[in-house]
């Protein structure tokens, strides 16, 4: 009997938590049309996007370089090192760009969002805003949400572009693949609609999920130091798992059926 009660309580807790998350998202999305929030959103784009730029550019560069190095050693055995360009570009645009950006973003910006909002809640800043008849959803949550939704696809694009240049650096400048075949085979293989646009769509979905989880975990955290630490950990773990799971579903939908 106790067991069933436990299961029921757990299920109800999960469901109400999903409900609260949906309500918060709803509030954040429909808080967009106020013009006063635009400077706040720009400020958040700086915190969430610009400050993640360094880690994104460095990882993109190195992932592109490593892929060119690994791909070259395998492809050169078949005399197909000219296909290095398409290999690097397609893996970056379709998978690594959106996914690695989302994982890094969850660690770099998502955890910070959770901790910030959680601490605001713990120090009763959110309640004070409410006391002053300022909607915290509108003032605190919405700018962060929109900033995340804009920043992550932008970062993913930068990641892919830098990665392709990094692949060029190693493949062409160091290992001696022909520069013409690197670009021209890439151009004849990569399709704007299928590869580039689908990559942006993927990263938009990841942006929604990661930012949503990060903000909700902060907004819904237990307002103690322990609660904030738990919420921050959960943000990184949950959003990474969600990104990896969703990536499989999206890949199957976008590229699985030819």
């Amino acid at each position, binding site marked *: 009997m106790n067991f069933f009660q436990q299961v029921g309580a757990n299920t109800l807790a999960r469901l109400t938590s999903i409900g609260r998350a949906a309500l918060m998202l709803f509030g954040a999305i429909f808080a967009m049309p106020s013009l006063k929030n635009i*400077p706040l959103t*720009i*400020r958040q*784009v*700086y915190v969430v*996007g*610009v400050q993640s*730029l360094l880690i994104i550019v460095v990882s993109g560069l190195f992932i592109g370089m490593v892929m060119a190095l690994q791909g070259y050693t395998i492809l050169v055995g078949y005399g197909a090192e000219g296909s290095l360009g398409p290999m690097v*570009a397609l893996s970056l*645009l379709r998978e690594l760009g959106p996914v690695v950006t989302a994982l890094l973003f969850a660690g770099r910006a998502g955890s910070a969002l959770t901790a910030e909002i959680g601490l605001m809640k713990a120090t009763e800043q959110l309640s004070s805003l409410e006391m002053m008849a300022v909607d915290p959803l509108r003032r605190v949550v919405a700018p962060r949400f929109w900033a995340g939704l804009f*920043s992550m696809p*932008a970062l993913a*694009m*930068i990641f*892919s*572009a*830098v990665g*392709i240049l990094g692949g060029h650096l190693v493949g062409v400048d160091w290992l001696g693949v022909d520069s013409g075949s690197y*670009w021209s085979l*890439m*151009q*004849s293989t*990569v*399709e*704007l*609609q299928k*590869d*580039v646009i689908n990559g942006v769509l993927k990263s938009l979905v990841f942006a929604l999920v990661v930012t949503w989880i990060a903000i909700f975990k902060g907004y819904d955290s237990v307002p103690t130091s322990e609660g904030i630490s738990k919420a921050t950990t959960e943000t990184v773990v949950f959003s990474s798992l969600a990104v990896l799971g969703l990536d499989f579903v999206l890949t199957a939908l976008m590229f699985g059926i030819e």
Partner: protein
Amino acid sequence: MNKHKTELMVGVFVVLTVAAVLLLALKVANQTMTSSGDTYQLYAKFDNIGGLKERSAVKVGGVTIGRVTDIHLDKEDYTPVVTLSISTDYEGFPETSSVSILTSGLLGEQYVGFQPGFSFDGIEELKDGDYLQDTKSALVLEDLIGQFLFNRGGNDSKNDD
């Protein structure tokens, strides 16, 4: 001052993003530049198209002049009909031109090799919507091996006699 700097950095971020998107769209995908040109359609019936796909190249002497835009089966005689979209930069091929399905390299992808025919009096130029009469099908490796083995088998039995 601090706010000014924030806006500046966000501006740099946005410009970087636009640059990345432009690089990906124009330099990497290169779609908008090539497909914007005007094309005209030619049709060719083949017995067997092998591994030809939509978007395969149409080449004259190695120069790409167009792409395969559609492949479907003729409902009446059940032969594959391939639609070739040729750039209007290359017009006026004589109607004696022939097309064959070739393979780039031993394992490479297949493309349509376009062989311009001779033009003399009474031979018209190919226009939009024309059918190419002279077509050569794809070389299917399995058929070739099958034929080879069959011939070998035939020869061996003759020698035994």
